[in-house]
């Protein structure tokens, strides 16, 4: 494989099958050092399956994968020694204390107790858990557990941090705190590889991302590029009282925007100028229950590329 030395992860026709089910269907991507790279996709897209292959805990079915220039099949332990992993489901030792968790994990990497103690102090500070260091993990909030998992994954000073849905299931406040922490890591030059099904998370954190759906990659680029390429600057969202109202309005929406996309509960009109389109819609005699002009987002990109919404 012709890989320039700086690629952190490189995948070609990467495939994962479970029995006859194809979870990852021949994907190609390349993750550079120092970037924040995302996999955005709905449930079952194959994000975790991909992450587990990168993390060398799931063998590749076919295709090629290089991580840190090595082959996961033969060099798993050596690669894992240089990665940090935040799995989708928490795997903390909940009956032990916060600092025990860091110590135990550091020892898995063969770090000395002195080194672990020094790093643990810093990491607890980073995770805002210094006050809770002697507490058991079990009663901590979901956000705290997540931050501890991230702190734990950093104990070996990894070259890349793999985060599988880092904020799923957290309340907005906990999520924002986590984003802020991850943003700080990014500033410090840690390579982030993350999966998410929140387009907001992808927009906030990712320099570059791929859109994944049913095991395939549907699009790739920076969030801004993707929106520019596949969506429009603005989107007019129309909500109707009933599905029949919605269907009745459709013929009169033809031509008011670059694209008109009917969904189950609303219609999206993709346009460069939302206000002008909204005016044109009113001129055509369409009066929806609610009308909203907003910026085009990754959510729209996903819809355009896959014909489905991220929540599907």
């Amino acid at each position, binding site marked *: 494989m012709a890989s320039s030395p700086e690629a952190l992860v490189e995948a070609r026709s990467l495939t994962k099958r479970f029995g006859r089910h194809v979870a990852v269907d021949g994907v190609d991507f390349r993750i550079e050092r120092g970037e924040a790279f995302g996999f955005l996709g709905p449930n079952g897209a194959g994000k975790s399956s991909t992450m587990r292959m990168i*993390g*060398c*805990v*799931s*063998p590749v079915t076919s295709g090629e994968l290089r991580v840190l220039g090595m082959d996961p099949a033969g060099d*798993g*332990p*050596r690669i*894992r*020694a240089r*990665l940090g*992993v935040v*799995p989708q*489901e*928490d*795997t*903390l*030792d*909940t*009956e*032990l204390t916060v600092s*025990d968790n860091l*110590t*135990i*994990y550091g*020892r*898995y*990497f*063969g770090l000395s107790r002195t080194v672990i103690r020094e790093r643990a102090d810093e990491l607890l500070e980073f995770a805002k858990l210094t006050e809770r260091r002697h507490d058991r993990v079990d009663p901590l909030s979901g956000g705290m557990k997540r931050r501890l998992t991230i702190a734990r994954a950093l104990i*070996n000073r990894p070259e890349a941090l793999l985060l599988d849905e880092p904020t799923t299931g957290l309340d907005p406040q906990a999520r924002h705190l986590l984003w802020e922490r991850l943003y700080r890591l990014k500033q410090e030059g840690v390579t982030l590889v993350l999966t998410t099904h929140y387009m907001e998370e992808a927009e906030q954190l990712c320099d570059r991302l791929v859109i994944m759906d049913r095991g395939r990659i549907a699009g790739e680029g920076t969030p801004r590029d993707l929106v520019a390429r596949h969506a429009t600057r603005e989107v007019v969202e129309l909500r109707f009282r009933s599905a029949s109202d919605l269907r009745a309005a459709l013929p009169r929406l033809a031509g008011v925007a670059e694209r008109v996309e009917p969904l189950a509960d609303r219609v999206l009109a993709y346009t460069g100028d939302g206000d002008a389109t909204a005016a044109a819609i009113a001129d055509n005699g369409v009066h929806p229950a609610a009308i909203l002009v907003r910026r085009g987002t990754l959510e729209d990109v996903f819809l355009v590329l896959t014909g489905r919404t991220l929540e599907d």
Partner: protein
Amino acid sequence: MSTAALRVVEREARVFRRLWRGTVFSAFVTPVLFLAALGLGLGGLVDEGGGRVAGLPYLVFVTPGLLAATAMQTAAGDALWPVMVGTKWARTFHAMVATPLRPRDVYTGLMAWTALRTTLAATMFLIVGAALGGVPSAWGLLAVPAAVLCGSAFFAPLAAYSATQHTEVAFPLIMRLGVMPLFLFSGTFFPVDQLPGWAQPVALASPLWHGVELARSATTGTFDGHSVIGHVLVLVGVLALGWYAGTCSWTRRLAG
């Protein structure tokens, strides 16, 4: 054993340091109570009747039996529910294999940890047994490695099996229909020749019987070279086959 597996032992030791109080009873107090009740209570009765069991005072007969049987129970307990905890309920084994540790290191490390705890518990049990008069020979010290080998011969295949399971429904059955009958009928409390004829070969196929016989040779200081080698070979064989199966099933479970 790799240093990676030692990291797992270290983790178990740290967990144990926090939670040991809950396990002392089953690992040490219960077997000693058994020893007191059977060795002294029942044994007194047997010996009063002028009887000997397999040519031994009952306490001497039953001490090595309980030693090996307790090792088996500890190993079986460790090889079932805790595996479900680590693979499914708390998923802590998944955390381990995200580091340089491999699934086989986790499996081997857990087996080593159980062996270490069995060593401690068996040593304490042996001291109490000796104090009560159940260990006539100084060779009795060798009963500790015999018990540990016996325990490992149970841990290896049982943990190999439990890593293939996604629910714990079969575990109580294994304890009740597998471990418990072996506990009672493997020459632990009475010689297997007391069993009906058809049952004797079954008892002889039990790894526990080999462990008990080995421990009994040690505590009584009566070694018959051929049978000692035979018992060791059977136990090592079961351990080796179990370990091979375990490295496969644990890899499939944690890195599949």
